[in-house]
């Protein structure tokens, strides 16, 4: 394993938790007022804060408050369309990760959110609308099994039923080979970076 390789992400499994709704934006995943901090530590407890509690701190109807979804251990989030839209804040996937979410299965994801997840080694895989609905229903009826997301076979398996999933080829490659954290790879090419920069006229302030 070279210095630029991390955890190989091929098979992730954990208790599923469905977050129903389209266009769940990152302001909902982590409200801005919890971002006044210089580290991501502690973000997990604020995930979905305003959907979980009202202004007086009373628990609202939200899967994270639902006794059926309180099993300990790793979690797989189930979501609908355009999950993670809006602000680029990595605080959103960081909050989910720190709460226990290790993979997300959904109908579709917003670009920046998807990239942030991959950069943290969290796979986001897509399934068809019908399959997501079926999965969510199956989980709500009986949440007591692990959902397994397999990046080799590109399947999500729940309680014996297998669903086909897809993701971006590049993201899949990075996750499986443990190269999802780009920093090491990018730094390896610093000499090439310097020669690319040297050819850009603005880097030289347009002087010869």
């Amino acid at each position, binding site marked *: 394993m070279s210095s630029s390789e991390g955890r190989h992400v091929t098979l992730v499994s954990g208790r599923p938790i469905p977050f129903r709704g389209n266009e769940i934006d990152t302001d909902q995943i982590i409200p801005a007022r919890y971002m006044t901090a210089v580290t991501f530590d502690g973000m997990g407890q604020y995930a979905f804060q305003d959907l979980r509690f009202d*202004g007086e701190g009373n628990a609202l109807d939200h899967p994270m408050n639902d006794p059926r979804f309180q099993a300990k251990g790793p979690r797989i989030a189930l979501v609908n369309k355009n999950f993670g839209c809006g602000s680029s804040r990595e605080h959103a996937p960081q909050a989910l990760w720190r709460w226990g979410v290790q993979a997300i299965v959904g109908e579709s994801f917003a670009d920046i959110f998807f990239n942030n997840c991959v950069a943290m080694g969290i796979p986001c895989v897509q399934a068809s609308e019908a399959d997501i609905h079926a999965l969510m229903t199956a989980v709500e009826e009986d949440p007591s099994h692990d959902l397994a997301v397999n990046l080799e076979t590109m399947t999500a398996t729940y309680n014996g039923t297998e669903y086909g999933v897809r993701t971006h080829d590049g993201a899949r490659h990075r996750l499986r080979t443990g190269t999802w954290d*780009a920093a090491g790879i990018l730094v390896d090419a610093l000499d090439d*970076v310097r020669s690319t920069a040297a050819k850009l006229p*603005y880097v030289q302030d347009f002087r010869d």
Partner: protein
Amino acid sequence: MGRSLLDKVWDLHTVRELDSGQSQLFIGLHLIHEVTSPQAFAMLREAKLGVPFPKRTYATVDHIIPTDSQVRPLADGQAEIMMSEIEKNCRENGIEFFGPESGDQGVVHIIGPELGLTQPGMTIACGDSHTSTHGAFGAVAFGIGTSQVRDVLASQCLAMHRPKVRRIEVDGELGAGVYAKDVVLHIIGKLGVDGGVGFGYEYAGSVFERMSMEERMTVCNMSIEGGARCGYVNPDDTTVEYLRGRRFVPEGADFDKAARWWRGIASDEDAAYEDVVGIAAHEIAPTVTWGINPGQVVGVDGQIPGVGSFDGDDRLVAEDAYRYMGWNEGDRISGTKIDVAFIGSCTNGRISDLREAARVAKLGRVRPHVKALVVPGSQAVARQAESEGLHEVFREAGFEWRLAGCSMCLAMNPDKLQGRQVCASSSNRNFKGRQGSPSGRTLLMSPAMVAAAAIEGAVIDVREVFGKGESS
């Protein structure tokens, strides 16, 4: 076959292709602020990585900074910690920091262009989704997450997939009282909040050719609200003239050379696009959002679309919006009572925005029940506005004149909505809870429309206000 600006810029900045199918892309300008950078610096320290190109990163504070008093230490201890942290990280790594005492502080997407840091043909990244603003200059500009901020600090590069390009042509004449903000809200309403996923938007057509740089910035700013990764306008004479004489722009013969290069980076006449969308300018009215995402828009003279006019998933989002906002079927947006009026943000906190809002403010007084804030986007905008006496116009009309920052755009500072207050806002997001109260409600509109709402106490068509006021 010609190439688009995005393709030209991409090719010039590609260091190498990676096994993942991504490009290792050199980033010409990196901007950082206090919210998304401290964790990136911590990751650098942990990985024992340095900052090899410190002169290609610039920093400011905008999100957490209070807009009433910026005296140190800041009243909010947590904000003070964040402020000290970015100062320290910049000092230790040799990065130039535009803090309040520099006279150049402001919202990151306002100061980059203002100082001439933002230039055509660059790749630009910032840990902030509205980095798309800089595309107004014909730059390819992306919002990134904190791990990627670390990547840029450590290598001046990002690993990225090249977006496809959709050209959006807006042709014809915009009516009086119709602004760049209305153009972009209309586009998002038409193409949807996820219509741009996987795309970069190229804005073109006669409306964009005539727009000032500030108007182009307003439109490019909200590209991300349409799901696009970036948005840009091809550089032209307007771009070149805006940049002439700015601090970080070359002078004399070097400027001429720069201008030639900038013009050459524009899309070729025969460039190929993945998709082309045409929009007629005369169809665009002053536009207001009625829902909980920036695609839920209505012309100010129109009726809020009924839930029944949506299908499938859009219907669920519409039902949710009706509940959250408290609408009844058949409601009109015009006449909706407001509690707060906010003029500012990286979408509409520039001098031309304040001038238009002041034109309206001159015609009346803020209703007593309305709290109205004007927050210049930068210290330079504030100075310019004050030299024109705009601050007096606002104050006389009953608006508060504040110091530069993001303020109530996302309320990570003391400027927040209370309870279910309704805010007429010139910012860019109307998400649930966006303006600091978990149940607060936001109506996005142009700065002139916000000023009109402040003096009417309710949403009103700014064309009516101009019609009554300026003719008499």
